[in-house]
């Protein structure tokens, strides 16, 4: 038996967009154990609810993470709206759906780029990010911000997005679809790429269920579960498929994310077609009193928002269960027994968002 050695991985590592530290216990080139430690970007945002007005808290919720910004703002607003019994207008629901899918697209395209970077395909990485820029431009034109939108508010949206602007998005989406097809073909069919993805980090459907995974990671192992099917916002009026893959490895997860971008485009097209006219904001009176738990599908998986209010303008408690938090156990599981060279790919495969996890 060869001797063991421990290699620190992170918090600063070229493949990591955010700081997470892993102690990799190696036996020759094989990882036998991986011990994660987090806590580098904890900001205590959850406890801010006791000091910030419940309406101002929307801005804080949006800033939990830069990439899932819209998802966090939406989760918070949805929970508070349920407590206050506010019925958001139909148009606001549709606009929220469109913005949510746009942000899902930019998150997934970002992930594809990071994955390309992790297996060393620089050209593909830059090309995906070039395409992502178009999504960001659409978001900036619609909301005024590239990643932090500040358009959500309790009761609806702070600003309407005119119909002609939404219609103007459709040709851009067509462009993106066309350009992305080349990249997706490379991700899914290229021999060199496949040799890095296939059979890496295999977890069966039963294992991912037992580890409590969520999001594309779960669907990449063939479990058909997507919180969007719960029908919040306007998702129950819109027809879309849950993308799954039975490959159960990193290739399957890439397949799911790549095809989810195309599903998002499909959702946006339907929403733009069906969107009704009307107001986007409902007047909000009084303070929330009660508690609620909201479940929603963020780009990285299912997030849970728990909000407890006590009838004053400050909330009592907010708790966010973020998707990366649920996927970290699966990460340590997949790392056991893998080659050292595959570690970056496996870390990126869960789409780690450490800012979300630590808040």
């Amino acid at each position: 038996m060869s001797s063991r050695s421990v290699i620190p991985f992170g918090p600063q590592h070229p493949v990591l967009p955010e700081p997470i530290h892993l102690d990799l216990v190696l036996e020759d080139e094989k990882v036998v154990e991986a011990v994660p430690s987090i806590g580098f970007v904890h900001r205590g945002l959850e406890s801010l609810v006791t000091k910030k007005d419940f309406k101002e808290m929307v801005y804080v919720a949006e800033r939990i993470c830069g990439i899932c910004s819209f998802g966090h703002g939406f989760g918070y607003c949805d929970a508070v709206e349920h407590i206050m019994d506010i019925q958001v207008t139909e148009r606001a629901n549709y606009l929220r759906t469109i913005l949510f899918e746009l942000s899902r697209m930019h998150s997934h395209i970002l992930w594809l780029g990071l994955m390309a970077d992790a297996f060393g395909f620089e050209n593909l990485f830059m090309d995906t990010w070039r395409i992502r820029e178009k999504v960001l431009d659409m978001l900036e034109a619609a909301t005024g911000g590239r990643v932090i939108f500040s358009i959500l508010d309790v009761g609806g949206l702070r600003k309407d997005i005119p119909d002609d602007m939404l219609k103007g998005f459709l040709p851009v989406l067509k462009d993106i679809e066309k350009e992305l097809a080349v990249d997706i073909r490379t991700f899914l069919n290229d021999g060199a790429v496949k040799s890095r993805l296939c059979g890496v980090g295999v977890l069966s459907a039963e294992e991912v269920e037992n580890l409590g995974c969520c999001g594309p990671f779960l669907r990449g192992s063939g479990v058909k579960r997507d919180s969007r099917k719960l029908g919040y916002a306007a998702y129950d009026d819109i027809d879309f498929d849950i993308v799954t893959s039975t490959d159960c490895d990193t290739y399957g997860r890439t397949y799911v994310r790549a095809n989810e971008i195309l599903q998002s485009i499909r959702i946006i097209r339907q929403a733009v077609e069906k969107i009704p006219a009307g107001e986007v904001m409902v007047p909000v009176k009084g303070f929330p009193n009660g508690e609620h738990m909201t479940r929603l599908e963020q780009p990285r998986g299912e997030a849970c928002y728990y909000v407890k209010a006590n009838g004053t303008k400050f909330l009592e408690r907010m708790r966010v269960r973020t998707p990366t938090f649920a996927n970290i156990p699966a990460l340590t599981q997949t790392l056991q027994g893998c080659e050292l060279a595959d570690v970056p790919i496996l870390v990126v495969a869960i789409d780690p968002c450490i800012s979300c996890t630590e808040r």
Partner: protein
Amino acid sequence: MSTVNYVGQALKNLFSKPATCKYPFEPREFPERTRGHVENDMDKCVLCGLCQMRCPTGAITVDKKEQTWAIRPFSCIQCRSCVDNCPKKCLSMDRQYQEPGERKIEKKFDLSDSQKEALAAQAKAAAEKAAAAKAAMEAKKKAEEEAAAKAAEAGDTAGAAEAPKE
């Protein structure tokens, strides 16, 4: 399964124009809604302080005594809350991003002279109106008191007259 899948795109990238713009020589065009930084038109501002109340980060300070409006641009999160809540519409969102700096500065704006005069005239008019209202109130109160006293007197005599009947 081919390993040359991406060659077409790679060749295209080699011979096409760069996707990025040549930044300092070619300034970026922002869409209409871009939130860059907050500007205040001091010709219209009335120093009501609503923006200060609504700012989630407390970046805005309104000093009514000194007649200044100040913003700490490095604390501002460009949420547009102040602009949306401004009753005089003197606050606006400029599309250009805030310039970077070495220190966290505070930008102070003095009220323009014409606005200062206008506000002073307004305050004077308001004070006069308040004084007039106060005088009127006092006169009314006095009249009411007198009337009440008279009524009480009359009531006393009436009560005295009616009392034996019961």
